[in-house]
């Protein structure tokens, strides 16, 4: 059976009731893993509380940080400081330079772009080529599609259609997430797959973007964050006290 993942819930973390409500709702809708956007300097106690909320709702918590860098220095600094603290790192690219830098960097998991100002969506062929080499994914928040109306929705759909085609061409994984700020903007995975058909994603590809693609990314990152990880293909099997005498 497929395990569905909503990588981007955006409740106000300080309002624990709202967090609880949204996490419970996502569990009801069939998600087994939920990603919560945390502030980079979150406290350990906060994390414990969130983990308990998720455990009570029978879901697994994925810690995620969203960066909004304005300069190269800011981006590199954020990645250096926080990469080993979060399971998923997303960069919201506000300029073309930031988009290229983020796409090149292997520490970035998700590339995200503005949904309101479509001129600031820089996911073109060059960006996709870089993202494909650095194994980063393109993230699409459906909440922005739900909240937009009329002409802005038409333009957004047309832009997303182009981006999905580009991602397919360069084999960049696409991840669909809710991006919901309240529980009324959350939908089930099959509903998201139907909405994704509006920008030419086939149902099977859309369901993969809600399950296997994010799951592979999370599993890889968790492996890398574990204390036994040394490098790609190298991990600690036994420690000092457990080693056999040779």
């Amino acid at each position, binding site marked *: 059976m497929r395990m569905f993942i909503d990588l981007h819930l955006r409740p106000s973390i300080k309002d624990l009731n709202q967090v609880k409500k949204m996490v419970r709702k996502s569990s009801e*809708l069939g998600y087994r893993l939920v990603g919560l956007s945390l502030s980079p300097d979150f406290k350990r106690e906060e994390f414990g509380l969130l983990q308990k909320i998720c455990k009570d709702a029978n879901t697994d918590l994925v810690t995620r940080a969203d960066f909004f860098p304005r300069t190269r220095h800011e981006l590199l600094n954020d990645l250096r400081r926080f990469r080993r603290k979060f399971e998923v790192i997303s960069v919201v690219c506000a300029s073309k330079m930031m988009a290229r830098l983020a796409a090149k960097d292997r520490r970035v998991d998700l590339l995200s772009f503005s949904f309101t100002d479509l001129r600031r969506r820089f996911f073109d062929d060059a960006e996709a080529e870089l993202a494909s080499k650095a194994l980063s994914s393109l993230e699409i928040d459906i909440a922005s*599609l*739900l*909240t937009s109306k009329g002409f802005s929705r038409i333009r957004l759909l047309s832009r997303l259609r182009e981006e999905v085609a580009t991602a397919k061409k360069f084999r960049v994984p696409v991840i669909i997430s809710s991006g919901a700020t*309240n*529980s*009324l*903007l*959350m*939908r*089930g995975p*099959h*509903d*998201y797959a*139907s*909405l994704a*058909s*509006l920008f030419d994603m086939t*149902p099977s590809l859309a369901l993969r973007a809600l399950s296997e693609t994010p799951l592979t990314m999370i599993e890889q990152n968790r492996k890398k964050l574990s204390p036994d990880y040394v490098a790609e293909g190298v991990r600690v099997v036994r420690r000092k006290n457990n080693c056999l005498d040779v």
Partner: protein
Amino acid sequence: MPRRVRRRYLALRVVSQEPVSLRDFKSIFWNALLQLFGEYGASQVGFSLIDYNQQSCQAIVRCSHKALEMVRASIASITEINEKPMAIHVMRVSGTLKALSKKAQS
């Protein structure tokens, strides 16, 4: 010999702060369908409302099996009614009403 029309039955749950009348339910659904797919698309859906319970906020609708994705997308795109936030979730989908009620019970 003409082929039998294949249909899909959807069990829906309406989530909103205020009760939604039957008339409002129908109108928001058709508006969403028209907004996303236009009159041509809406004509292919073969939509009909089988049952609507205002108290339990549940509904059963029927559509053509070919238009299932269109109907699901339209339903998912509904976010407000009379400028108040709302959502409609698809609980179950089935090929017959009998199977739908069985699934709902289980």
